[in-house]
């Protein structure tokens, strides 16, 4: 019995840790969607751009300074997007804004590569390479966890906790929830939409930076980071596009689910399930519960 629990826990844990990272990217989508009703296609590009910025700045600056400078750059990017794209397109339909974010994606990709180069960079945060062995006394042989995964999960967890406090306990949080619920009503009480968008895109930028840093440490900083964002799409379908807890729980479910599926039912399909499992789950959700686990049911009034 114990012999089976060990590997199971190891897979589960690895999956949950990957899930935290999916959750982080999904969170970026949800924040922006809630506040401005825009499905931000550029979230993945922002992750890559942030990671590139960080890794290149770390070549000349100590980590803390490089991180702070990267945050500042992400805020500046948010500022530019708000001014140059969102403000002129205010009150346009969701589809138009979505197309605009596709444009932003190409811009950020190109700009990032011009500015920072398009090689593969390793992001070295000085974490130990060899895995830790935990739970050795109860389980024979213990289970292996990678310090990089633990670091990523802890950072992501801290960020999520910080955001939860920010949005639930501050005046900005109330203003943000107001904007998410009803733009016009929010404006009528004097909430400045532009400031809220700026805050939300900045927060999404910083979230992208943390996600990029965590993924970059695991996989290296390279173009495929932008594709990790595609994994966030099943996550938000599962969690609901408007729910922050949904993004987190959805991320954990997808992360753990795909790893467990790979190990336990993968052999029946000849392996490789991990690559498409999340999308099948998302498809099932779209069929049976399109609003996601936590999303609000969309009722069309006639």
């Amino acid at each position, binding site marked *: 019995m114990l012999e089976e629990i060990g590997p199971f826990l190891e897979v589960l844990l690895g999956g949950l840790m990957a899930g935290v990272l999916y959750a982080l990217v999904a969170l970026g989508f949800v924040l922006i969607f809630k506040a401005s009703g825009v499905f931000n296609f550029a979230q993945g590009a922002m992750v890559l751009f942030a990671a590139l910025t960080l890794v290149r700045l770390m070549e000349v600056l100590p980590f803390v300074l490089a991180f702070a400078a990267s945050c500042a750059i992400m805020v500046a990017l948010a500022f530019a997007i708000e001014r140059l794209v969102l403000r002129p397109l205010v009150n346009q339909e969701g589809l138009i804004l979505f197309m605009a974010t596709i444009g932003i994606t190409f811009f950020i990709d190109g700009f990032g590569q011009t500015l920072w180069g398009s090689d593969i960079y390793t992001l070295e945060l000085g974490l130990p390479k060899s895995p830790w062995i935990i739970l050795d006394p109860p389980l024979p042989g213990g289970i292996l966890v990678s310090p990089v995964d633990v670091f990523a999960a802890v950072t992501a967890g801290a960020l999520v906790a910080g955001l939860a406090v920010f949005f639930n306990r501050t*005046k*900005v949080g109330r203003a943000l929830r107001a904007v998410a619920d*009803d733009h*016009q009503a929010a404006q*009528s009480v004097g909430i400045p939409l532009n400031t809220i968008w700026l805050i939300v895109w900045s927060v999404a930028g910083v979230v992208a930076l943390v996600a990029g840093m965590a993924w970059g440490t695991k996989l290296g900083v390279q173009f495929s980071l932008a594709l990790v964002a595609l994994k966030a799409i099943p996550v938000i379908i599962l969690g609901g596009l408007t729910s922050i807890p949904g993004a987190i729980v959805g991320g954990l479910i997808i992360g753990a689910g795909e790893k467990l599926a790979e190990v336990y039912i993968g052999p029946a399909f000849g392996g490789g399930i991990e690559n498409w499992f999340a999308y099948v789950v998302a498809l099932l959700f779209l069929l049976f519960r399109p609003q996601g686990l936590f999303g609000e049911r969309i009722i069309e009034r006639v």
Partner: protein
Amino acid sequence: MQSATARAERGEGQPAAGRKFGGEILKVDGISLSFGGVKALSDVSFSIREHEIFAIIGPNGAGKSSMLNVINGFYHPQQGTVTYKGVTRRDVDPHDAARNGIARTFQNIALFKGMSTLDNVMTGRILKMRRGILWQALYWGPAQREEIEHRAFVERIIDFLEIQAIRKTPVGRLPYGLQKRVELARALAMEPDLLLLDEPMAGMNVEEKEDMCRFILDVNEQFGTTIALIEHDMGVVMDISDRVVVLDYGRKIADGTPDVVRGDKAVIDAYLGVAH
């Protein structure tokens, strides 16, 4: 029926008797607004005096809501100006309007559905909080002290509108009449000088309408708030308003005291649907 009650509440036989108004708080001048081919407003002018209860009436699609949207800056007219507290503008910015003391409610209730009554009303205090939004994000202690002060103010409004029982209820679960009342509470929390009410009593039963009338009159009397309201119920309009403007197909067809407007031929024709 509610007329008698409302009038009794105010303790007056004649609507106009004993009412004191200040100078002109708002003037709209030559406003024309169209959406593509649809002319929502054509060359509409009128002015509202301080402390007045001012009604805008007219058949469906006459342009009443559009007028309120121009006043608080949601719509920008192609022609004309809005003069508020002596400052003349072509385009009003909703944020400026709110900052300068214009609050409003909506024809289709626009509450923050995910929040409780209390939180909804608290959003009305956002502009009264001394620190800007960004500042509040960074400092935590002073922000909380301020929150408590505003909370006390909001509780008074909640008492005033008699919605203590639903303070913690998410507004999405409230019946329609109460939602309208929460919307009014949110607007009042802004301590407005000019309150715009778009059909505050639509869809209410007689009892709810009577309550709403009483609240509107009390707000006007106790806080001196100027009120511009749109309403379809003629009994209510004639009873509580000091002055009435009538719109029809985007044009102003009458402007005067309720008694004058009631007898106006053009108004009667508009309401009876006489061909133009």
